[in-house]
């Protein structure tokens, strides 16, 4: 299938496959981690309602930090799909 493949075709196919793999892993793992964090925070809030606002603030900050790793994955994949700077090396 890849006997007469042009470099553009190979680059495009590899980009598609790796970006789908990357997005699937890169959103599943942070989502699991955030679910664990919310679970523990809710248990703590139910056990001690007085500390609820402290827990809520810590939970928000921690979820934003966990979310940022998913954003890094999304950023890299958007860059390689739309604005891949290495294309000039292969297509010239």
């Amino acid at each position, binding site marked *: 299938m890849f006997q007469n493949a042009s470099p553009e075709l190979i680059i495009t196919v590899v980009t598609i496959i790796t970006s789908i793999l990357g997005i699937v892993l890169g959103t599943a793992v942070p989502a699991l981690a955030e679910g664990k964090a919310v679970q523990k925070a809710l248990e703590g809030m139910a056990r001690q309602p007085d500390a609820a606002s402290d827990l809520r*603030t810590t939970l*928000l*900050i921690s979820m*934003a*930090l966990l979310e*940022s790793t998913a*954003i*890094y994955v*999304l*950023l890299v994949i*958007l860059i390689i799909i*739309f*604005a891949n700077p290495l294309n000039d090396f292969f297509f010239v």
Partner: protein
Amino acid sequence: MTGVFPEVAFVLFGIPIRDTVVSTWAMMAIILVFAVVINKRQPVLLEMLVDFLADTFTNVMGVSSAPYLPLLGSLAIFIAFANIISIVPGVISPTKDINTPLALAVVVFFSVHYFGISQKGLWGYVKDLASPIFLLPLELVGQLSRTLSLTLRLFGNMISGEMIVAIIFALIPLFLPLPMVGLGIFTGLLQAYIFTVLASTYIGAAVEASEIKPKKDKVD
């Protein structure tokens, strides 16, 4: 992908000026005008805003946040306004260019060291930074990675929101981009809050006393 990435607007004295820079100037003027006008009509609103910000930072930092409130409050208001202003058609928000979040993160980096040194003195601050001496390289790399992560978090959230709206607009332009724009605004406000809270955490960690030396009681 025009309109997603920033472009050069005009050339001033031989320096090409991007449209995000023009947007930053316009935002500075608008914030200034708002502050002066609201101060004349209802100063209570400004007091409420300042009290809210000061309480938030004091809760996070553990010490009184009054000396650091000008820097942190300006960061909060600037980033929140910058993330929201892209809803006006034709305006590109300054944080969608990677240079603006990078500049803000560099400001936070230098201000952390400045406040630490002004609070503890140069030798005290370096001593606190290198308390177990073999952790000093890790500490330095950690400082750089904090700056990088602040930049990428803010920029990544903004640019991915914009790209998702652009892609959905290319597919179904009728009503579907609207919830994505709403999500982008919510994410923008949340990211402004997160950036400022993280900056205040770093400053609080730099100025707090690392160990409490017990005072010897003098018996008269």
